[in-house]
């Protein structure tokens, strides 16, 4: 025992720095054990612990840094020695040393194995050919991404959780993707037959090909030895330029095995309830360990609990890990999938309650005992209820099970809130946090800080939000007691065209007669602008009192940059531009000394214009036929497109033409936040439409419309709203969608968060704008028709009117004098702001305060 041979500073060696390894280090740090122990970590990968659960988000824009789980300075702060890229090679339990690949020999008093697992690659011929990959580390992803660049098709062996993640990633890389699953359905471990069928339909509708009930017999290779396809167990062959093996994982127990520790018959380092191996100086935690209940847990929640257990045991405290809940909820290829408790109904006499709607790919099954106790369930396509159902598992739900699976709108709505849960219900299963612990906190950040709930897989965050005390005042700001949506209704029904009327008539008592504030003024400005044609107000956002409401960007019809200069973005509809227009942009940039950069939205941004230069720049651009790109406004930005059928051998529709039509239709539309869109000409989705507020993907029959997508800081895949639409149907549906969003969203709420918040979610949205359940559609369409009919280019209007041009001076008392603080220095053959003129504190010390 470690305690029997006292050392001044006992040495801990941790082998493996994955999610569980890092959690173990944090658990030690939280308990002060990093101060009393010398800790060395050997890590095989070239980077410290990162979030493997969300690995696929790398392909939707997360950087390896975003995925990192190791806070900057953590190792230094706690005196932990971390060796990256230097895995342990052997353990000498007699000498109590670990030898690493680079030859380090590190003595230990306590050894912790957190070596994780490795992908299982079936022993088929060709499995090692160039073009075969596994899907486990960031390095694997980088290799796949690199290889896929020049390839067009891919296959994934394994249709489980990780296999579908990998398939989504390949599809996202533009490869025609197929999935080969040995079991008769997708995700055989988590979902039952019905759930698998719902999942299959949805996955196929995304353009993926699925083979179930067949195995992989051989990886076929071409003359250069690289992958060309696969032979399946039914004798058929399929083409594939690359193959990803994702057919399960195996515990990495080789070090334990070689050093004579007890290892399970089917792998996994045997541990007791305190996570000790057969050598009491050695712990094993996470996916490499075979828990006392005879299972290997491949989920992060149980891994974290083992890490806590091992840390507590080190300090001589009582804590046991005897097994864990295998419940999961995740979004695969944009489809919600959840399973919890006894999902397969293995308990004797268990009964099912099933709701299945193959039209919308929704499948829900609850397993109950004859006495009505909820035992488990499977949710596919709509896993909204997971947060409530999982904690109810093991009890008799307060309403009958059929009402728990029926969608809102069918039958009586279920008023089953988290308030129905008992205090002891576990809300966060990753960190084992109960409702009682959560309700002791006041805010979500406090919950995360004090209990860690919501910081693992994140699936409980929504439920936590419902458990916390609701903010009693939903008002927009200190000036109005109403939400943005309520203000919209007031403006619309009272036909108000002035901020002052609204503030004095509907503002809070103390705010009436005042100036409003920086929150409500642009919000109301946007509402009035959205409704202007309908209200008979001026559509020009800078007329009269409207001028005082706009943020500086709208006020100068350009984007303010850090040194007080502005950037200019001309509209390039659909990203299509003639050589002549391209030359004009180049000439303007050259003549005004502007820094030019291609944007993510297929446009060109020109930086470094002084306020007084804006009209001159735009005079040139307008003359060449350019219009405002509204990059400065909470308005439609761009509709990206791929080149589509006209050129691309895969294209099935003219995506460029549709993108231009949509961009011209919705240009200038003021909204609660910016709006982005894209049109892809085939299911390869090169325009990334599923990351947009509204995205369109061509099908052989027409267009599929996706809504509520987002990139940026909180990426969200868009939801499929409707399929195979004609041009006219598509436009009508987008008209309704946008106007319904503008009408009901909160201030600065993107469509993604709006849709997540919308009561009833996507189903409700579909009811309202596809089936017109509220009888609103005619009005929404009329509002959009008004917008389209009254659109004017703001810059052309501005240039026409000397009154409007008056504001474009740096100094009211010295028109023509440029701002002396706007200076530039050279960088990479262009310019950048000269910050030395500004004499500022370092940027780190600044940061927005509100």
């Amino acid at each position, binding site marked *: 025992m470690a305690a029997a041979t006292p050392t001044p500073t006992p040495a801990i060696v941790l082998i493996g720095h994955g999610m569980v390894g890092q959690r173990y280090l944090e658990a030690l740090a939280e308990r002060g054990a990093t101060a009393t122990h010398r800790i060395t970590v050997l890590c095989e990968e070239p980077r410290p612990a990162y979030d493997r659960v969300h690995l696929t988000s790398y392909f939707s824009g997360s950087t390896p840094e975003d995925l990192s789980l190791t806070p900057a300075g953590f190792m230094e702060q706690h005196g932990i020695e971390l060796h990256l890229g230097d895995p342990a090679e052997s353990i000498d339990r007699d000498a109590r040393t670990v030898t690493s690949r680079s030859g380090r020999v590190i003595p230990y008093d306590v050894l912790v194995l957190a070596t994780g697992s490795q992908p299982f690659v079936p022993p088929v011929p060709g499995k090692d050919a160039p073009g075969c990959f596994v899907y486990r580390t960031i390095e694997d992803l980088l290799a796949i991404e690199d290889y896929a660049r020049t390839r067009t098709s891919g296959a994934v062996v394994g249709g489980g959780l990780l296999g579908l993640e990998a398939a989504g990633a390949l599809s996202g890389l533009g490869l025609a993707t197929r999935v080969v699953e040995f079991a008769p359905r997708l995700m055989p471990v988590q979902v039952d037959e019905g759930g698998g069928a719902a999942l299959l339909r949805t996955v196929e509708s995304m353009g993926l090909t699925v083979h179930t009930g067949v195995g992989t017999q051989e990886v076929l290779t071409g003359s250069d030895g690289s992958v060309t396809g696969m032979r399946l167990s039914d004798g058929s062959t399929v083409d594939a330029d690359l193959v990803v093996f994702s057919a399960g994982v195996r515990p990495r127990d080789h070090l334990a095995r070689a050093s004579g520790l007890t290892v399970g018959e089917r792998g996994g380092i045997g541990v007791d309830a305190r996570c000790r191996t057969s050598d009491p100086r050695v712990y094993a935690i996470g996916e490499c360990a075979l828990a006392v209940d005879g299972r290997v847990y491949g989920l992060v929640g149980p891994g974290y609990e083992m890490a806590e257990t091992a840390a507590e045991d080190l300090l001589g405290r009582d804590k046991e890990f005897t097994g864990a809940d295998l419940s999961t909820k995740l979004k695969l290829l944009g489809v919600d999938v959840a399973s919890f408790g006894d999902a397969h109904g293995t308990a004797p006499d268990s009964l099912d309650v099933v709701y299945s709607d193959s039209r919308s790919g929704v499948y829900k099954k609850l397993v109950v005992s004859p006495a009505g106790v909820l035992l488990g369930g499977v949710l596919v396509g709509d896993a909204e209820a997971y947060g409530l159902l999982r904690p109810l598992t093991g009890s008799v739900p307060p309403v009958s099970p059929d009402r728990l699976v029926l969608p809102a709108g069918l039958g009586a709505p279920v008023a089953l809130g988290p308030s129905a849960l008992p205090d002891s219900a576990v809300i966060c299963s990753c960190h084992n946090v109960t409702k009682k612990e959560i309700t002791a906190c006041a805010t979500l950040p406090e919950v995360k800080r004090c209990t860690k709930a919501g910081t693992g897989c994140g699936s409980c965050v929504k439920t936590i939000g419902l458990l916390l005390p609701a903010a009693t005042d939903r008002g927009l700001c*200190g000036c109005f007691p109403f939400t943005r949506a309520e203000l919209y209704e007031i403006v619309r029904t009272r036909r108000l065209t002035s901020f002052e009327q609204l503030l004095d008539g509907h503002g809070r008592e103390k705010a009436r007669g005042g100036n409003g504030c920086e929150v409500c003024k642009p919000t109301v400005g946007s509402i009035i602008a959205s409704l202007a044609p309908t209200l008979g107000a001026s559509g020009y956002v800078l007329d009269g009192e409207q001028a005082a409401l706009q943020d500086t960007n709208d006020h100068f019809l350009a984007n303010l940059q850090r040194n007080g200069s502005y950037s200019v973005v001309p509209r390039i509809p659909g990203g299509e531009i003639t050589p002549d227009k391209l030359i004009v942009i180049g000439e303007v940039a050259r003549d005004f000394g502007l820094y030019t950069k291609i944007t993510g939205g297929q446009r060109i941004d020109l930086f470094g214009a002084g306020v007084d230069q804006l009209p001159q720049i735009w005079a040139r651009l307008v003359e060449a036929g350019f219009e405002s790109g509204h990059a400065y406004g909470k308005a439609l930005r761009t509709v990206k497109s791929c080149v589509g059928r006209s050129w691309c051998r895969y294209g099935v529709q003219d995506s460029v033409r549709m993108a231009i039509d949509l961009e011209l239709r919705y240009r200038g539309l003021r909204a609660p936040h910016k709006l982005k869109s894209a049109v892809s000409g085939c299911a390869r989705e090169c325009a990334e439409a599923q990351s947009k507020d509204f995205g369109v993907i061509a099908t052989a029959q027409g267009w599929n419309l996706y809504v509520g997508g987002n990139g940026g800081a909180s990426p969200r895949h868009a939801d499929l709203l409707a399929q195979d639409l004609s041009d006219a149907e598509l436009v009508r549906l987008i008209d309704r969608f946008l106007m319904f969003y503008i009408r009901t969203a909160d201030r600065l709420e993107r469509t993604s968060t709006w849709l997540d918040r919308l009561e009833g979610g996507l189903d409700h949205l579909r009811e309202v704008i596809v089936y017109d359940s509220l009888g609103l559609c005619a009005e929404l369409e009329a509002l959009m028709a008004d917008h389209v009919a009254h659109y004017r280019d703001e810059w052309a209007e501005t240039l026409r009117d000397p009154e409007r041009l008056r504001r474009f001076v740096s100094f009211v008392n010295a028109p023509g004098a440029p701002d002396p603080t706007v200076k530039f220095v050279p960088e990479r053959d262009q310019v950048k702001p000269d910050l030395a003129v500004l004499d500022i504190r370092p940027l780190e010390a600044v940061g927005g305060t509100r």
Partner: protein
Amino acid sequence: MTVELLAPEGWLTVCELSALTPGRGVAVLLPDGSQAAVFLTRSGSAYAIDNRDPFTGAAVLSRGLIGCADGRPFVASPLLKQRFDLGSGRCLDDGEAAVRTYPVRTAVTSAAVA
């Protein structure tokens, strides 16, 4: 009627009062090369503060939005949104930061309003 600002060199004519939009500001170049931001509130009061945003160094405060907090007018920097009280120059979001203020008057009444 003109708006005047008291610079170290004496009263400086800024512009015609009618050139100001209630709820917005303008930038003024001062004789020493520094800049002031002059605002007109809804009630017709004029204020002047330093145009330089101390958080970013950029001369942009004149382009911020005016609002009211507890009945006192403020401007929110258009860059990182910190608010500055127009009367005192104090930053409402950071006790350490402040900008200087300038007395302002309209020429006909010759009455200082700030």
